[in-house]
């Protein structure tokens, strides 16, 4: 054992540079897992904290199941009479804006969970409210009795941004015009102060009800229970209250809201986990690199040790214990780096969520131990194959000059199995994309099989790649390129792993590009139809029903059509009520301003529109159609004010409003079934030849001030949408680029190892007249070839993966997306692969060019 430790430390000491290089792998891997772990935890915590703090000590909350049936005094009374309920806090919520703010509201776009916000007012009971939530007053005072005072409390940060002081009067837009409220206090942006990102204020309950015509109506009841029960008892109370209040309301836990939001993050989480997987993979293979090299180098030493009686097991143990030492040091270092790295990552995710995560950055003990453990295990796994090879060294090897690693079965004929594996797994995935949970693991395994297939394909084909790329290499690097790229076939396992790391990064870029392109294409065609009008009119207060007709009378306006979005519920074919948006249109004017995109282009549009106009019929979105397997002629059940009502499906249209959970009906049905005559939006078509800006000015002049209209042109909205889309996808782009960067470390490491291994050879080449510049080209060409293979294989792999993801997404969500491979993405991924391979090779190449000739050819 003593001897073991001694030998281990010696051999680590002997190659400090290599030790550091291979440790770097584990270090980055561990740092990656930990940083992601910390950030994930922090973002989850921040989200749930946001909801927990903002809901304070509230045990349960009661909300209406749909917009059109708000909670009533009756609900409060029933709730108050339940024994377990101690306090009921009624809340009225209103979205509004300040009168002096130029652009209130705007198009309410929610794309991948990002929305453009507004100002949120809560009407609360000033006496009861402090029982439930801790408002931290930083200036002025909290609301006081009476319940109808014209007072408001704002969030400090928001007030500062808007330059509002305590004592000021602010003008708030209401359906009845402008209401003036006095700012009596400011609260800190913590706890409930985080609601709506601080664009939030509280007013007395009755004031809110009066201002927004909501007398006797409530949006939410927060409940404090008599004693803080166990979670099991709490669930019983929740069910009891739910039974008492009936189906019209839902009784939930406050944190339940946070869960919805965290779903939005899960997309990113999958990406981030993918990234830490790559970091680990690279880490494992850097270790493999280092040890494979040590073993070849020390063949004589191992042979000698075997000659003097060391068993195979002892040799294997010796190599493994070396790995263990490296693993412990490297992982330890990784933990430090991970903690630092988490800060940067938190900044990135934080900006995505619009919150500051740095306060939540605590190092979770479990994750810390896990990452350490994983680091050490991965190190040992990486060193396992080399250590077994070391154990196989025969005593006679001591007599030979140099050990030569033999080409294994895998490098020779693995590619056949690789291609087979790739084909089989791709076929399986395309045939059945395993969208749902029980099959998810199976699906992941199949994706893993794909990776395995690609990995196996590489070693057997590198020499073919080398031959094919000769003209290119000669063109770029001259003859040095021919000599250098020949080296690719030498350390096949190492080269293969490097290429695989690179190709994963390239594939990620391509997947992101294909997804973006496929999404955009559908989205753009929908947007073009959706905002087929030239001007979009919106107000932060409800518009009167005849507004559209009035707007139609303005000079320059060709046609105007009213639209209303009503949040409702429908009966899913599987059973159960699910939320949905009912878009009420006036078919006659609607078609004069814009048009529907019918999924089936052969449909009789005229007949469908006539059916919609007659009432009792709907256009459903393609998303709903696919998700529930519905089509024209089927029945669709909606919960209305008159109970469940069935509509016939007149057409399937492309519409991604509310993530596609939308149906289109006519305004008569809105009035009839939902007793609403409101307008959310007016779409305007401008007369031919009249500049849109002029028409906007006209409308603004006539109605703008009076009705607090905000007008946006088609172009502005399209611009906004594409910005939102870019934001959503840029995060994935960032992840893909990070993956490529991590893989570039693999290239650096592999080339460094190659160069160290070939010192004598490089010395010989320099001696017989190779210039430093030629040595550099030689190394660059080897890296370049890795880039070419990684780039091209990654390209194919990426296209396959993207196809699979798209198929899977269609199955899961009902989005029917055309598969588009953008040329730009193809070029980007190839260029990135080549450029990264060259950048990563610069340092190794320079090191090679500085090889000391005499030291290299020195032998004794």
């Amino acid at each position, binding site marked *: 054992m003593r001897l073991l430790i001694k030998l281990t430390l010696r051999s680590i000491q002997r190659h400090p540079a290599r030790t550091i290089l291979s440790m770097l792998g584990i270090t980055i891997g561990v740092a990656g897992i930990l940083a992601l772990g910390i950030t994930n935890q922090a973002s989850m915590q921040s989200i749930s904290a946001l909801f927990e703090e903002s809901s304070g000590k509230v045990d349960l909350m009661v909300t209406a199941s749909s917009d059109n049936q708000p909670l009533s005094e009756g609900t409060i009374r029933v709730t108050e009479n339940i024994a377990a309920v101690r306090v009921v806090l009624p809340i009225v919520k209103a979205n509004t804006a300040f009168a002096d703010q130029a652009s209130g509201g705007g198009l309410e776009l929610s794309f991948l969970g990002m929305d453009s916000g507004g100002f949120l007012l809560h009407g609360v009971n000033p006496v009861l409210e402090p029982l439930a939530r801790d408002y931290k007053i930083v200036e002025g005072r909290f609301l006081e009795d009476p319940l109808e005072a014209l007072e408001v409390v704002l969030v400090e940060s928001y007030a500062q941004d808007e330059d509002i002081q305590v004592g000021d009067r602010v003008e708030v837009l209401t359906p009845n015009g402008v209401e003036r409220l006095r700012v009596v206090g400011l609260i800190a942006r913590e706890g409930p102060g985080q609601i709506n990102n601080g664009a939030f204020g509280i007013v007395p309950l009755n004031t809110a009800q009066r201002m927004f015509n909501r007398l006797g109506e409530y949006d939410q009841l927060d409940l404090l229970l008599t004693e803080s029960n166990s979670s099991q008892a709490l669930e019983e109370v929740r069910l009891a209250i739910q039974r008492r209040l009936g189906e019209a309301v839902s009784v939930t836990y406050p944190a339940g809201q946070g869960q919805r939001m965290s779903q939005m993050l899960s997309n990113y989480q999958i990406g981030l986990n993918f990234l830490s997987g790559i970091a680990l993979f690279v880490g494992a293979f850097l270790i493999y690199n280092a040890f494979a090299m040590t073993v070849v180098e020390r063949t004589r030493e191992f042979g000698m040790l075997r000659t003097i009686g060391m068993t195979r097991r002892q040799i294997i143990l010796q190599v493994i214990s070396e790995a263990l030492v490296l693993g412990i040091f490297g992982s330890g270092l990784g933990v430090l780096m991970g903690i630092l790295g988490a800060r940067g990552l938190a900044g990135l995710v934080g900006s995505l969520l619009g919150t500051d995560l740095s306060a939540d950055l605590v190092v979770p003990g479990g994750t810390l131990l896990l990452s350490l453990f994983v680091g050490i295990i991965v190190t040992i796994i990486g060193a396992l194959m080399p250590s077994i090879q070391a154990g196989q060294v025969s005593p006679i090897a001591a007599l030979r000059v140099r050990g030569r690693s033999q080409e294994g079965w895998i490098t020779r004929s693995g590619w056949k199995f690789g291609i087979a594996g790739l084909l089989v797994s791709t076929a399986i995935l395309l045939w059945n994309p395993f969208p749902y949970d029980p099959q998810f693991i199976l699906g992941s395994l199949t994706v893993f099989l794909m990776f395995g297939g690609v990995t196996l394909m590489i070693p057997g084909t590198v020499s073919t790649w080398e031959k094919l790329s000769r003209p290119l290499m000669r063109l770029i690097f001259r003859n040095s390129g021919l000599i250098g790229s020949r080296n690719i076939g*030498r350390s096949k396992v190492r080269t293969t792993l490097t290429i695989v790391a690179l190709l994963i990064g390239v594939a990620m870029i391509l997947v992101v590009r294909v997804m973006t392109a496929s999404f955009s294409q559908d989205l753009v065609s929908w947007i073009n139809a959706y905002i087929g009008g030239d001007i979009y009119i919106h107000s932060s207060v409800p518009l009167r029903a005849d507004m559209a007709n009035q707007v139609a009378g303005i000079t320059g306006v060709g046609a105007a059509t009213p639209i209303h979005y009503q949040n409702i519920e429908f009966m899913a074919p599987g059973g159960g009520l699910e939320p949905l948006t009912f878009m009420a249109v006036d078919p006659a004017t609607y078609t004069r301003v814009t048009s529907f995109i019918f999924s089936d282009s052969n449909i009789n549009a005229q007949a469908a529109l006539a059916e919609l106009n007659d009432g009792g019929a709907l256009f459903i979105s393609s998303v709903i159609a696919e998700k529930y397997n519905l089509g024209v002629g089927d029945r669709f059940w909606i919960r209305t004010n008159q109970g469940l009502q069935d509509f016939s499906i007149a057409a399937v249209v492309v519409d991604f409003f509310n993530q596609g959970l939308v149906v289109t009906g006519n305004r008569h049905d809105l009035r009839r079934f939902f007793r609403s005559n409101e307008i959310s939006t007016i779409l305007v078509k401008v007369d031919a030849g009249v500049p849109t800006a002029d028409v906007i000015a006209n409308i603004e002049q006539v109605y703008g001030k009076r009705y607090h209209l905000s007008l946006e042109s088609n172009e502005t909205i399209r611009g906004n949408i594409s910005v939102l889309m870019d934001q959503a996808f840029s995060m994935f782009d960032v992840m893909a680029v990070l993956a490529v960067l991590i893989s570039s470390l693999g290239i650096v490491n592999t080339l460094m190892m190659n160069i160290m291994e070939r010192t004598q050879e490089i010395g010989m080449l320099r*001696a017989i007249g190779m210039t430093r510049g030629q040595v550099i080209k030689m190394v660059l060409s080897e890296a370049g070839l890795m880039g070419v293979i990684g780039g091209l294989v990654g390209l194919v792999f990426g296209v396959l993966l993207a196809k699979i993801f798209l198929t899977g997404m269609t199955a899961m969500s009902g989005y029917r997306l055309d598969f588009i491979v953008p040329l730009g993405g193809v070029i980007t991924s190839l260029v990135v692969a080549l450029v990264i391979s060259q950048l990563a090779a610069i340092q190794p190449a320079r090191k090679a060019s500085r090889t000391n000739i005499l030291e290299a050819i020195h032998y004794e």
Partner: protein
Amino acid sequence: MAVLNATNLHKFYQLGEFQIKALNGVDFEVEAGAFVAIMGPSGSGKSTLLHLLGGLDVATDGDVMLTGQAFSELPDHQMTLTRRRNIGFVFQFFNLLPTLTAEENIQLPILIDGGKPEVFQSRVDQLIDLVGLNDRRDHKPDQLSGGEQQRVAIARALVTQPAILLADEPTGNLDTKTGKVIMSLLRRSCDELGQTIIVVTHDPRAAAYADRVVFLRDGKEQETLKFKELKDLSERIRKIMGIMEKMEI
């Protein structure tokens, strides 16, 4: 006429407080077509001298002139080009690129010089003939024996028709019989191609193939043997052994 001319060569190494005088004033002249062997005890400075003559290292004092060009006046890049075009090297180990075939290894200097190997095919063929590796030209180094590898190295060193061929212990790693093959190959290159050759060796049987044997000791020339008239190899070996005994090598 002298192809190579080294005057007053010194090479000192500083090891902490100690100064090692690896070469301590060597004058050396080699005529075109000559075949010179350098002998001497281990550590006497043979390799150091060869490295200086080949422009692989820079002298502490003194200078080397190859075909009229002083090494001290050549910047690093020019020195590299001189090595590439005017000097051939054969080392004891690490002579070949394992990724290239025997023939491609012989073409290596042409490749490095940016030339097209096809243009020089007849010369390459001639050299493959000379070293007797016609049936081995497509073999990779690891499919060749040590002697065959050295033969490829010699052909490689000859392909550019260098002004001088330098070999450091080319037979050091070979058995006696193979060593003989290598040395007679060098001998033939000298006789048939007029190649100027300097060989460092500690083996009197190898040195006997040369026309002149220079003995080094402590970084200085100690003795010189000239074999112009003496053709008999064993007689030459006897003479070399005599000097070695005298020098207590």
